């Protein structure tokens, strides 16, 4: 692996583990109330309908119980009164690195963002705590009518588009954490790709948490108009604090007729972050939505990207890799809601549990009645590295009516002692042999990823495996 490829992307856990003193101009303080919502709305100068939307969402959040009847009881350890819900220096991101405040700039430079932008990205947005500090896109794309801005700017500059789709894919009351996000959201991306425009290079967003006891609630809305194509990548890091940090995003994708959206996540939050994210797409006729979801960091991740296959022949796909090490629970999966004839979906989930790590797959495949020619394929494979590791699989599949075909398979296995022995005989150390086995386990899936990400993922797996044997 060359040093050049290594520096292209940064999702390395150790490199993200630093932070600068806070200098926030805007701080909503600790705790959550209607006053917090008003503070955020005032600072952002939002229209009334958004303010009302936020207040209603907060009531929904308060009224909903924690989902601990099925989910991890670790959720009870989130202390909502101690979290700070909004921290920012300024309201508008700059378009030039020179104008970004020095310590923030140093943060992103250490993470290699400007470098990546020059090399292969069509646009970059960098969010620091609650707001985007930098947002830029190649000029040619802007000329074609592509919009790539923060959610705050999206709301201000494109109110009709924004209002038409905002909260329509994921309603406020979908779950407790989507309600929380709807009440206090800030940051995230707003993307619109006009009909027929194919964005060749990926757009990237970078999410950084710098402050302690903080909650990041970005809100992303991507609309790909008829026949357009776009790929969006997100990365995230945070320093390791003693206290828990909350990240609760809502991401809505709309793929109109014949459009294609690929959404790539490499989640490498530090091990004190609760990562509770709702992600869902609507795919219209002949549209394709693909979620590529890698979860390596965080304390507890609960994330089940979904696709509502609304139009005939729409296609949805989730490719998911989760790696759970000591102190981590990766509770991930996928949802496929078939709502039209001849829709197809594919879910491939691989998880690796190391040490005392726990990974869970939770899935939903729903084919209601009177549909014809729908197909789903689901494969879940889990690899257990140590005797203390744990893995679970909890799929739910409902199929109504003949004429559809659904298959689900899951398996759990180990790295066999024979394999390791074979490689050690040929001069590899035990750790190297283990890394090679694990990489082999995820290899067929990683091949589907954009090249830069597959290289990075392999390196991350190597890092995680270093201390896992012996």
């Amino acid at each position, binding site marked *: 692996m060359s040093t050049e490829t290594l520096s292209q992307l940064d999702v390395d856990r150790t490199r993200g583990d630093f932070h600068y003193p806070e200098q926030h101009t805007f701080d909503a303080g600790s705790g959550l109330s209607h006053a917090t919502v008003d503070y955020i709305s005032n600072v952002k100068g939002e229209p009334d309908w958004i303010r009302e939307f936020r207040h209603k969402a907060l009531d929904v959040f308060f009224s909903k119980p924690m989902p601990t*009847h*099925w989910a991890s009881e670790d959720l009870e350890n989130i202390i909502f009164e101690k979290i700070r819900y909004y921290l920012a220096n300024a309201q508008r991101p700059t378009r030039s690195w020179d104008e970004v405040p020095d310590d923030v700039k140093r943060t992103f430079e250490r993470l290699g963002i400007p470098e990546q932008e020059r090399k292969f990205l069509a646009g970059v947005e960098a969010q620091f705590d609650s707001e985007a500090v930098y947002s830029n896109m190649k000029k040619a794309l802007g000329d074609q009518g592509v919009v790539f801005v923060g959610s705050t700017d999206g709301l201000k500059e494109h109110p009709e588009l924004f209002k038409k789709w905002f909260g329509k894919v994921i309603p406020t009351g979908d779950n407790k954490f989507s309600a929380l996000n709807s009440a206090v959201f800030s940051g995230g991306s707003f993307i619109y790709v006009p009909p027929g425009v194919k964005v060749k290079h990926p757009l990237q967003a970078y999410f950084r948490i710098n402050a302690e006891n903080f909650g990041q609630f970005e809100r992303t809305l991507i609309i790909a108009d008829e026949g357009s194509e776009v790929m969006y990548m997100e990365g995230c890091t945070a320093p390791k604090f003693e206290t828990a940090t909350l990240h609760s995003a809502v991401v809505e994708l709309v793929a109109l007729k014949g459009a294609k959206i690929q959404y790539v996540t490499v989640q490498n939050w530090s091990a004190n972050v609760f990562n509770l994210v709702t992600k869902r797409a609507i795919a219209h006729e002949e549209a394709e939505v693909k979620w590529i979801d890698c979860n390596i960091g965080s304390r507890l991740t609960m994330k089940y990207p979904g696709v509502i296959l609304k139009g005939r022949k729409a296609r949805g796909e989730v490719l998911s890799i989760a790696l759970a090490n000591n102190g981590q629970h990766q509770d991930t999966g996928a949802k496929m809601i078939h709502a039209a004839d001849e829709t197809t979906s594919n879910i491939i989930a691989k998880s690796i549990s190391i040490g005392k790590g726990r990974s869970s797959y939770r899935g939903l495949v729903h084919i209601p*009645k*009177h549909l014809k020619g729908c197909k789903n394929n689901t494969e879940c494979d*889990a690899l*257990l590295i*140590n*005797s*203390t*590791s*744990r*893995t*679970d*699989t*909890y*799929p*739910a*599949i*409902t*199929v*109504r*009516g*003949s*004429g*559809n*075909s*659904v*298959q*689900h*398979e*899951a*398996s*759990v*296995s*180990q790295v066999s002692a024979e394999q390791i022995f074979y490689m050690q005989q040929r001069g590899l150390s035990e750790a190297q042999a283990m890394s090679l086995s694990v990489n082999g386990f995820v290899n067929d899936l990683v091949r589907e990823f954009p090249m830069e990400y597959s290289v990075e993922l392999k390196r991350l797996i190597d890092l995680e495996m270093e201390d896992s044997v012996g």
Partner: protein
Amino acid sequence: MSESLLQAPPAAEAFANQPDWLREARQQAALRFDALPRPSRTDEAWRFSNLRAFDPQDFTPARPVALEVTDSLLPLSLGADSHAGSLVFANDKLVARTRSAVADQGVIWLPLEEAIEQHPELVQRYFMRSEALFGSAKHLALHQASVRTGTFLYVPKGVKVEAPLQAFHWIAGSGQSIFPHTLLIAEEGSSVTFVDWFKAHSDSRNLACGVHDLHVGQGAEVHYVSVQDWSRQTVALHSNATVVGAGGKAVHLSLHLGGSFARSESVSHLRGAGARSEMLAATVADGAQEFDQRTLQDHCSPDTSSDLLYKNALYDEAKTIFAGLIRVAPHAHRTDAYQKVRNLVLSAEAEAVSLPGLEILADQVRCSHGATTGEINAEELFYMQARGISERDAYRLITYGFLNEVIERLPENSLRVRLQEALQARLAGH
């Protein structure tokens, strides 16, 4: 479930010479039944279940049947040709028994009420000892408070019973409730095959709430077959708990044919090293029938294995739910567990729900599950039609073949034939 369910005759009437521990256990169970909340859909164990099936109904503990009814039931209580003995119950009362030579081998083969009198210690050691899983505490309590009879089968160490033993549970009349019970204990190195036939005298609405527990000792081998053929209006709740000791083997095959709402819960606790369990079921669901199947393959010891195969054929507006979990406890290393559910959907309105789960906390395990839902392969249909078989016959033949694969797993030939006949009869209308 209504309060009236509890207007069972006082326990003293149910069992003559009832020992104190049993009277107390039954009183406690009655209190538990009253105190426990009704299941709700937010319980994971009742997810997707149609809880309207539990709306209060006017079921009363079944009254004894008339002599002429009994006479009509007996010719229908034959079972396998080569059986080693039968018990026939109607409305929770023993109405007939065949002489059996198994007693000569030291096998205890009695209706439950006689076992309580003659072998109170044995009954006490095993009677309803399993914890309530699947959110079933309430109906297990109901069963314990209301049970009046059933089968007690004890096979001593090393004894091998060659031919199958069997029991028939009939329900007659309407608005009646019965509580069939099966308690089978196979001591070390023994082997036995036992069949429960659940049948209805007429097509009326009744409630059956049964408990069927198997204790398979070290190196013992038990085949347990249940043929659930209640009326199409019956609400049926059947709970099975199987405990398998070291090196033992349990095979539990169910044929699910009857009931309006039929819930079957089945757990295999693989308690001893090297224990093995096979859980097999074939279900025909049509009309508005709903089959709710919950299973657990509970691996608590190293080197245990389990293999589950559930097949459902769905017609009309029928619904099936399969929720199965493979649970591998810490230290249950080298577990080999497999689980497969296959749904064959034969109409536009039928609904199949599959919830196959895994919870693995051990090392060096091999666990996998598969769930498929689909329709009949068009090529297979064409192949048959090209050979002069009508479309309707082809559908039925393919469906029969699909389900028969489960029955074929049984080694006992004369029993297999009876099950195949029951399946054919059930599919005849389609």
